[in-house]
């Protein structure tokens, strides 16, 4: 039988897959501002 999976289940599954203390990497660009942005 075909069962429709809920979005909630998928989100939960995704959370479990990440190791404890996982910090997403910063976006590769643009880089840090050295002085100030105008």
């Amino acid at each position, binding site marked *: 039988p075909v069962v429709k999976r809920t979005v909630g289940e998928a989100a939960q599954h995704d959370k479990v897959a990440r190791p404890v203390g996982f910090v997403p990497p*910063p976006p*590769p*660009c*643009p*880089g*840090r*501002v*050295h*002085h*100030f*942005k*105008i």
Partner: protein
Amino acid sequence: VPTAPPPPLGCDDPESEAAAELAVNYINDHSHHGYKFALNRIENVRVIPQGLNHKILFLELDLLETECHILSPTPLENCTVRSFTEHAVEGDCDVKLQNLDGKLSVLASKCHSHADSNEDVTRVCPDCPLLANLNNTQVLTAVTAALNSHNSKTAGAYLKLLEIGRARIQYHPVHLVFVEFAVAATNCSAGEAKANVDACQLLPDDQSNFGFCTATMATQPLQDVQVDCKLYGHQAGVTYSQPGQDTS
């Protein structure tokens, strides 16, 4: 099994930072007017592999104007970035580099500079003087008065104007004109210049004594000029191009 492609280069990666540092030095070394620029942010980096140990890098850089004139011998790392309240000037640069056998070199660069908007400066600092056009009458009057004032008081070489670097005008609470300009020593003393100023010639580039002056002119109630000129001294290999003679 083919190897996985390397991860994309991040803007804050050491390789990007090294390429940006080289690019900024290249840009300053190839500029003959205005001020030295310092790196503010790497906006983007793209790497195109060319083969074994060879790749092309495209950098988008955001630079900020420093207080060091391009003719100043002060190393860039010792140059202060122009503060926001002094009406900052930004440079947007596209730079093409190559990394061949681990050695980085700049192939080309293209930059555009623009001042921060008057509205941005005024919002943060309502009374701060704003940048004025370099051909503004008040600016030209201030520069002329300042240089005349310096030349009338100095016992050293008669100085001629090379270029006006920047100028700001303050209207409140008192009317002031702030100017900065580059100068070069001539083969005349101030006394000789008084007799025949047209005979005073800039020294050849390899002997030139370049310098930089800052001045403030008040016009009300009376005209008053405060000027401070410093000569950089002899510098081998530094040249100044007359406006319109640049090749890059």
